[in-house]
Structure formats: C-alpha cells, structure tokens
C-alpha cells in the first residue's frame, strides 16, 4: 500500500471514531434539548399514530419528509390546541378547497395523543428553525391591537376560505372591507356560531378560541373599512 493510501486510510478510520464520539455526546445533550423527560405515554402514542398513518409522507416534520403539505413542527404553537383538535376531527371543514388531507375518523383519544405529540415536537430546540419570516408588511398605519388580530386571523387559517387584499381562498366573502358592513358584535357571533347567521354555512365555529383572541380578531376585522 503506498504511503498516501495508508495516511488516507488512517484518517478515514479516525474520522469514523470521531463521529461515534460526537454521537454519544449528541444523544446525551439531545435529551435536554428535546425535553425527553416530557415524553409521556400519550406523546409516544401520538408518535406511533403519526407513523401508523404515515403522515410523514405528506408532511415534513423538523423539515424532513414530503413537501406536499405544511411542515407541522410549529403547528401547535401557531394554530393552538382548539384549532388542531377541530382540524383533526374533520380536515375538510377547515380547508374545503385546495389540497386535501384524508379524514381518518380519529377517535377523541387518538386526537388527544396526536395533539400532545405535536405539542411536544413544537418545544424541541431546533436552533431557531424555521426562521421567522422577514415579513408580510402589516397594513399601513395598523395599530398594535389590530396587528395582534391579524396574527390570529393568519394563525386560525381564516384565509383558507376568505381572501383579503387579493390573497387567500375563494370560498367565502372577501374581508378586505368587512368592517364597513359588519359590527363587532355580529362578527363575534359569527365566530361562535356561523349557523345562526346561515343554517347551511360551511364556516366552522371558532367558539373554542380564547376570549382575548376573539376580541382582538373582531377588533381587527371591524377596523377594515
């Protein structure tokens, strides 16, 4: 074996051992970074369901998987628990148009496990991934309360059906000037129970939202004159 080959071979073996060493260290640190102590039986059951239904071949999680559906790493943090529950009960109710997720007719306990799992995942320290967007610039002159309301609007996926300033879905009325035709009380009622205003409404109820979020959302919408 020529000398250069021998050196190369030794360096290669050395790098493999270094890699094993780093693996031991990484696994050790990862239990803190992932809050392994919070891996309850329910969370693990959620992971099992996630794999059983092969959710990962539509979705990415931690940025790995298929690119057909949104990354769910931060869904729990962005959408909140009530939304996730409602969504998992019947995905089509929240996103009637566009790409579809199958309805697996999950039981209440299964949904609990999946939500617990997504909650655990959302707390993994991912070194700041995904990066915060540099911004859809907020509407000019928007006050901070309204900004908070617009965040709720985005987080709850209202734009799956509604559009605003030309962006969003086409299944429901455009909300760019909704404040000029609806009062705050009416909007709050629509959020709680859309069927009161239209028995055949396809809009899901957002009654489970936190009261503060509902208020901010309604304030924001009435400000859109």
């Amino acid at each position, binding site marked *: 074996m*020529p000398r*250069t*080959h021998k050196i*190369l*071979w030794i360096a*290669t073996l050395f*790098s*493999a051992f270094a*890699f094993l060493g*780093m*693996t031991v260290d*990484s*696994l050790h640190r*990862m*239990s803190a*970074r*992932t809050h392994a102590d919070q*891996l309850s039986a329910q*969370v*693990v059951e959620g*992971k099992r369901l996630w*794999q*059983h*239904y*092969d*959710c*990962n*071949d*539509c979705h*990415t*999680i*931690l*940025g*790995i998987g*298929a*690119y*057909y559906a*949104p*990354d769910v790493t931060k869904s729990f943090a962005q959408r909140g628990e009530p939304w996730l529950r409602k969504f998992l009960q019947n995905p089509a109710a929240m996103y009637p*148009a*566009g*790409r*579809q997720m*199958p309805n697996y007719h999950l039981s209440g306990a299964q949904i609990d496990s999946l939500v617990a799992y997504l909650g655990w995942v959302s707390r*993994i320290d991912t*070194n*700041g*991934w*995904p*990066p915060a*967007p*540099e*911004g*859809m610039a907020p509407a000019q002159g928007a006050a901070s309360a309204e900004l908070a309301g617009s965040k709720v609007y*985005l987080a709850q*996926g209202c*734009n*799956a059906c509604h559009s605003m300033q030309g*962006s*969003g879905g086409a299944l429901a009325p455009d909300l760019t000037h909704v404040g000029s035709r609806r009062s705050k009380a009416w909007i709050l009622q629509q959020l709680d129970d859309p069927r009161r205003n239209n028995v055949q409404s396809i809009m899901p109820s957002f009654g489970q939202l936190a009261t503060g979020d509902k208020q901010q959302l309604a304030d924001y919408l009435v400000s859109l004159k």
Partner: protein
Amino acid sequence: MRYKSQTIAREYLVAALLLFLLQVVFGLLNITKYIWGYDPLLNIIPFNVSRAIHINLLVFWLLLALMGATYYMVADELKTEIYSAKLGRVQLGILLASGVAAIVGYLFQWNFGMPFLEQPTVVKLAIVVAALIFLANIGLTMFKNHHTLTRMTATLLGGMVMLAVMFLFGIPFMDNLSTQYYYWWWVIHLWVEGAWELIAASLVGWALIKVTGVSRQRIEGWVFAEVCLVLLTGVIGTGHHYYWIGTPRYWLWWGAIFSAAEPIPILMMLVDTVRHMLGARTLRTVNTLGLAWLGASAFVHFMGAGVWGFGQTLPQINRWTHGTQITASHGHFAFWGAYGMLAIALMYIILPELSGQSTEHGSKVGFTAFVSMNFSMIFMVMALLIAGIVQVYFQRVLGMEYLQTQGHMRLWYEVVLVAGSVFFVGTLLVLWDLLRLARTLPVGEPIPETEPEAIPGD
C-alpha cells in the same frame, strides 16, 4: 458470458427494469396530485401512499440492479462461478415477495411511517435475511477464490456490508422523534453518501477496466483514494442533516465543513472516468451506449450530488431551503445521476455480454432514450429548483401561508408533469432496447473474448 451462474444477473436486472418503469408511473401520479388539489383517489391511493411507493420502488430497483451487477462482476473478476446460483435466486424471490408485501400493505395502512423506511418491521426483517444470503453468497465466492481476490471486489464487498449494517439502524421504533431521525440519517445519508458510493465506485472501476482496457493498477489506486475520501468527508458530513432536528449546535460547524468537502471525491471520480475514457478509446471493441451512459452518469453525479448538494449544504442557506422543493430537485438529480444512470450503464454492459449480442453501435431506440431521458430529467430538476426558490421566497422570507404559496408554484409543477411525461416515454424506450439486448440469441456456447492484458491467476 463465461460462467453459467452469471445468468442470475439477468434476472436481477430485468426485474429492476420493470420496477423502474413502475416507479416512474408513480412519479407521474405524485405530480398530478401536486397540480390538481382535488384528488379523486384521496381515499384509495392518497399522496402519502403514492409517494411511499415511488421512493420505495426507486431504492428497490436500484438495489436489485446493483446486486445483479455485483453477482456478474464478482464472477467476472474472480474468474469463477458464484458460490450458489440457487441461493441467488432464493434471495431474489425473498426480495420480490417483500416488495410486493410492502406495497400492497401501504394501501391498507400497514406502514412503519418513516420516509423511505415505510416497510413494516416484519418485511424489514425479511429484507435483512435476503441481505445476509447475499453477503454469504458473495463472501463465500470470494473466500473460496481468495487468491484471485481483487481490491475492486474487496471494496465492493465492503460497501455491501456497510449497506446492510446501516439498514439495521432504520428498524427500531424510538420514542424520541429527534433520536429516531438521528439514526434515520444513518440509513439515508450513510447509504447514498457512503455505502452506495463505495459500491458505485468499484462497479465503475470494473466497468472502466472492462470497457476501456485501462490498466487495473491505475484504476484501483484511484478508486481506493476516492473511496477513502468519500468516507472521510461523508461520515462526519452526516452533520449537514443535524442542523435543525434537536441536535447540538456544534453540528452547524462540523456538518458544514465536512459536507462541503464531499464534492471533492465526486469530482475526482468524474475527472478519472473522463480521462480513462478519452485515453483508451481505441483499445477495445466499444460499447457505445454503455460508454455514453457511464460517462454521462459521472457528469450528472457530480452536478446533482456535488453541485446541487453543495448549494444547500451550508447552514446559512439550508436554514431557508430545508425541506422545500429545492431538496426534491437535488434528490432527483443526485439519485438519477449517481445511481439511476449507473444502473442503466451497467445494464448496457452486462446484458449484451450475457446474451452474446453485439453492442458495437447502439440502436437508434437506445440513443433516443438516452437523449430524451437525460434532457427531460434536467428540465424536471430545473422546474423543481425554480418552484423551490419561489417557495423559499414567498413562504420562508415573506411569511405567506404554505398552501397559498403552493398556488404560486403550480406553473413549475406543470413543467415537471410535461418533462416527466417525456421521461416516461424515454423509460419505455430504454426498457424496450435493454430487453431486446437481454434476449439470448444463440443458446449455450461461451463467447470467445480477446483479453489484451494478462491477469495473474488466469
């Protein structure tokens, strides 16, 4: 063909070709689901199932092709029959049965649920059994002929052993998703940027010696250096997948530095292949299409893996591109160049030798396939790349909703569909051409072959 047991290579290669066609059909199904949101098959073959089938068939046909080529190559190098042709057939049977069980299982939600490793655990264990049979069969052939063992075949066996060992890390269920993914990459990354590269490098080396007649000594020296560098950069290079999955921050450095060097051995392989091909054009009867696929593979391997991979491997960039269509663009380009094209090149070299057909001038159908497949694949990966750039900008930089962004990418998915359809036609042509070459015309007698270089032990 000189050894009777080499005919098992034909069975592996023909099976691989048919599965390749099926893989492409599922690729087309995937992209139509991307384009038309309403999916009439949602409750029969939803996207996750068609994607699982697409990528499983991909890995499956490539493995069949590499294993078939290995059986052929080992007999050819060691100048011997394979230890047991029958075991080789049993192995193929187990693999095909596992494949059918897995794919039918997916339709009924029988699924392990990790991408590429969707096979239920029982099926994985059957695959392990097949792998053990394969290693035993090849290992015993080498052991019985250790006096004619070449460095090329030893490297190949090394790659196959590494392939089998890494697969084991994809079997257990782990409670912690981050840990699960940590080991998942030991299969996915350490396969394509480790074990498979060793296998590919030794098969390319063998093919070069065979087709160009360049001296064994020179090629073996290069292959050894390349293989060491692949592992030296690629093992710690696994860190380019450990940036954002709950792993410590130091991987941002280690992963970046080592993976950034991964294109170096790939570039060496390209330079090496081109040099030997140009330098040795006149030495032997040429196999025009075999050479064309081999040379083009070296080039696309470098572009798809080396250039596309490097483009997204630094954390400053990967932070934005991670898990977008840019990854899909790289995945297609690299798999096609490094392994898909190599598998076809090996088929063009091995199948006619087995059947005794002349390959001096490739057929028109074969050239049409070569051109149409490669150009359409380039269009496909370019369209995916542009789709990915649109995605990164609207979704990650501006913060637009996922589904809304997808709407803005639709045009590029349509380009993928058109290019993919051309690719499908090319696949039919290459299948036609290769199946034609695989048919034995005169049965029996070994084809006399002129050997310009004397090999010790011959």
